[in-house]
């Protein structure tokens, strides 16, 4: 039995290593400082994904700013007070939203914001990503918060702490590593999303920091490079993929590091 599970583990890990290795192999040749800072240029003139990196980080930052706190709040609510009918409905909605294809969020935000305003925008892209993040963070937070032992809550209640302080001071800190994992999952998920951004942030060939203008992003840029007929652009798509994966890895490590078990 042990050898069987070990074999399965080995199989899965080797596939993962194979994918990462192949991406690195294909992508590393086109990587350069220019590639990381320049904006896309016509074929044969070089160009890079600088604006897409910045765009992705801005989109992700805005989405996280809204999606993660909201998700944590809803998840905590479900775990602590969500035993009634309202909690059941919220939980059902969150579960359903996790299963919804991401392009649906894109179309929804397109109808809700882009059509109303009349232009593609960073704001719309961030909203679409935040909507994807919320249910993921919500459900992981709920599961983790529920795992905090009852005895720990009772210990705080017995000292005269009101319920909300028990949640804030004891339960959430005890659950923070797990909550961070949930947030990480959500970040990794949306950082690689292309579909919801096609209808919302759209993409751009320039550096941009404005919320009311179209915004470049790495997945969309990779998509554009990859569907082109040019060999050179294909190489760029590989390189951009490598950068994207590295970025996710870096964010993952830093979140892990900053929320590692203090106590």
């Amino acid at each position: 039995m042990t050898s069987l599970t070990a074999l399965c583990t080995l199989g899965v890990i080797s596939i993962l290593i194979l994918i990462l290795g192949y991406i690195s192999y294909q992508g590393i040749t086109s990587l350069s400082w220019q590639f990381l800072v320049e904006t896309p240029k016509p074929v044969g003139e070089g160009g890079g994904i600088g604006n897409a990196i910045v765009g992705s980080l801005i989109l992700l930052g805005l989405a996280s700013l809204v999606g993660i706190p909201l998700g944590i709040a809803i998840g905590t609510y479900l775990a602590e007070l969500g035993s009634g009918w309202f909690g059941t409905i919220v939980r059902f909605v969150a579960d359903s939203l996790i299963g919804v294809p991401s392009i649906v969020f894109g179309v929804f935000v397109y109808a809700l914001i882009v059509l109303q305003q009349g232009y593609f925008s960073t704001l719309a892209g961030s909203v679409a990503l935040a909507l994807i993040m919320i249910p993921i963070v919500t459900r992981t937070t709920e599961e983790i918060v529920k795992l905090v032992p009852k005895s720990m809550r009772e210990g705080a209640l017995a000292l005269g702490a009101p319920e909300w302080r028990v949640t804030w001071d004891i339960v959430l800190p005890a659950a923070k590593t797990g909550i961070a994992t949930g947030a990480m999952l959500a970040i990794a998920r949306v950082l690689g999303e292309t579909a919801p951004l096609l209808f919302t942030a759209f993409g751009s060939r320039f550096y941009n920091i404005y919320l009311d203008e179209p915004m470049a992003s790495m997945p969309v840029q990779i998509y554009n490079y990859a569907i082109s007929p040019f060999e050179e652009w294909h190489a760029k798509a590989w390189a951009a993929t490598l950068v994207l994966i590295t970025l996710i890895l870096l964010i993952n490590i830093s979140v892990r590091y900053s929320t590692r078990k203090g106590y």
Partner: protein
Amino acid sequence: MSKISVSNLDFYYGKAQALHAISLEIPQNEVVAFIGPSGCGKSTFLRTLNRMNDTIPGTRVEGEVLIDGNDINEQKTDVVALRRKVGMVFQKSNPFPKSIFDNVSYGIQINQIHKGKADLQGRVEKALRNAALWDEVKDRLNTSAFGLSGGQQQRLCIARALAVEPEIVLMDEPASALDPAATQKIEELVVELKRDYTIIIVTHNMQQAARVSDRTAFFMLGKLVEYNRTDKMFTNPDEKLTEDYITGRFG
């Protein structure tokens, strides 16, 4: 007047009645032990004294629990203030995921008992001394509470409970998960604490009840069978059932 006066207390988990017409008086600065077989209601009764059962949905209390003459189940009772006055130590040590210092200071801070930082440190030290833990942890107050041994963790929880200056301390089998040496320390501590606090201790260990308590209450099937001075209870109990239990004929 008794510190705690209970009369005709019934308690229900949903429809199941867990306590039947309990009445007893607990004098100040005494140690009272609750003994009885598992599921007899002694822990449930203990938890009615600081309304800890409020946290369990569907529970209901009838009857009267007076602490210093005030009915704690009245609508106007401030549960937070009650729990500050009636501290609790649990069966399994349950330190917070914080440092040793922060564990003890938590209750002081949420209740805003202290005046300034120096006072806070003084209070933490005093609580740890009262729990006979100070000498073992004074050099590592800022390290994790989970680094302590089981016995030390339990004494930390006692220190935490003492830090908010309760008048009554409820202990729910505080030594049941500890080895004999750690148990002895807790027992010595209980006798020591009697000077300043009224202590109620639930225990499965008859010898422990005999060693530490002034009075003993014997519960069975949710009823209070006998409540007497401990020396009388263990030498010449009034009830046949008590004698059978204490001599180990059942339970």
